[in-house]
């Protein structure tokens, strides 16, 4: 895995440290060099092709142009405004969609009857691309924030819903027998067996959900918006500012990656007990 920084987390258990079963990994110069080699070669090659005119300036920008566009947008404050508003929409949409996904996932997971009632409808909705429902939401909720946040919420809902149900259904039957032998109350069975065993699956759902939320914010902002990173791209397209389009893409990529890294960090903190291959 490429997330070296996260691998350097302190071991949680004193015993683990003593026995050395969970080795710490430090970020070494070598690791950085290995990770950075390909991107650097790529950037240098890109700049060279642009300077020598092999890349058409009508369709391409260069790394240096993009860097100066970032500087320009940062100085005017627009950059941070766009990042801020996009991030805010993702957070709101994810909070609404993710929470509902978790709640309905738990309901469906625990009760087959509930699942039979709500699952067919959700499966149908799940297959609908957010691009297709966006016009409807704009029609219903107008051009304001509501429609954008809801488009994101719909996208963020499903991965958490599906993975929560899966997590609950895949609880190891051998551990269920242990909970019976130890005469767990119904509450303990849920709180101390089913929920903790589902956490890995639910976190996977959170990661996928956030990824979808980022995809949806592009859709929402490019269709109707006067702000946000999606709007920056849209603006670049209609004003032939190719460098802006690239800035937007880079921002999305970076923000998406950072959010994903954060969830993985959470995973490592919460799932340190898991016994699997670490690479």
């Amino acid at each position, binding site marked *: 895995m490429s997330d070296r920084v996260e691998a350097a987390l302190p071991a949680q*258990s004193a015993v683990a440290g003593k*026995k050395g079963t969970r080795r710490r990994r430090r970020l070494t110069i070598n690791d950085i060099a290995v990770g950075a080699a390909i991107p650097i070669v790529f950037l240098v090659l890109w700049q060279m092709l642009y300077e020598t005119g092999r890349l058409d300036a009508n369709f391409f920008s260069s790394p240096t142009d993009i860097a100066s566009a970032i500087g320009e947008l940062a100085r005017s404050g627009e950059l941070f405004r766009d990042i801020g508003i996009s991030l805010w929409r993702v957070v709101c949409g994810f909070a609404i969609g993710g929470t509902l996904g978790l709640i309905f996932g738990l309901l469906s997971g625990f009760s087959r009857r509930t699942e039979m009632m709500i699952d067919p409808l959700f499966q149908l909705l799940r297959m609908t691309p957010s691009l297709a429902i966006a016009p409807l939401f704009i029609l219903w909720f107008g051009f304001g924030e509501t429609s954008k946040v809801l488009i994101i919420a719909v996208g963020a809902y499903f991965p958490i819903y599906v993975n929560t149900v899966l997590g609950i259904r895949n609880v190891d039957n051998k551990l269920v027998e242990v909970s019976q032998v*130890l005469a767990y109350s119904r509450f303990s069975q849920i709180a101390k067996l089913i929920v903790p065993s589902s956490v890995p699956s639910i976190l996977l759902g959170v990661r996928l959900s956030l990824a979808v939320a980022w995809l949806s914010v592009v859709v929402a902002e490019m269709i109707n918006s006067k702000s946000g990173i999606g709007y920056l791209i849209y603006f670049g397209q209609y004003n032939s500012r190719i460098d802006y389009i690239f800035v937007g893409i880079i921002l999305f990529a970076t923000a998406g990656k950072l959010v994903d890294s954060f969830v993985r960090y959470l995973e490592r903190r919460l799932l340190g007990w898991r016994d699997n291959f670490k690479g």
Partner: protein
Amino acid sequence: MGAALLEIRELSKSFRTDSKTVQALHHIELDVQEGEFVTVIGPSGCGKSTLLRIVAGLDVGYEGQATLDGRAISGPGIDKGFIFQEPRLFPWLTVEKNIAADLSLRNPEVKRRVGELIELVRLNGFEKAYPKELSGGMAQRVSIARALLRNPRILLLDEPFGALDAFTRAHMQEVLLDIWRRNGTTMIFVTHDIDEAVFLGSRIVILKPRPGEIRAKIGVDLPYPRKKASAAFQDFRMRVLNEFERIDELSWGEAGAGI
């Protein structure tokens, strides 16, 4: 002799699958007195696990009677401790939390007893370790401590040391005998290893398969601690083996290969 702790009368159990019905146990009669260490031995598939699971309350829908302390066994409960062949620890909990399980370590009484049990199963220093950091023998000792914390009337062990290497297994047998001596917990211990059955048991129950029936109950009159290399031990082992051969002649057939 007073009323037995565990009384099993005319116990039969069959499993129905789509295609056929398997008679796992047939007319089992067994009394276990308080403080006894009963080992149950037989080839695989003869119903040892089924018998133990019925006593534990995990398998219901049997014919006949099974009573603990005079009450019919109708479901699982903390009065019946169960040790599975695999340790079955909760992987997200540390050793001490696994032992406490649904009880809170914030309760000083629980905390104290967990500490005592960690001492008893010789896991000092591993309180905060996660299951993935434990060897098979250590993990199994955690599961024994987990069962003992509930002060069970009877401890049921289903081939608990079957997956361990010979050295660890011998060590675990000592640990278990030590617990039995100190706590006096009534034990039913299932194994398919004759040495293990003779080494541990105050009484040996021999099962035969198809259908699962009791072929013999033999009291082991060897004093503890037993020495596996001693002549008396070897003599006794031969007696049990002879019993097996007699069964073999009667009806065992190809199923005897399990030993």
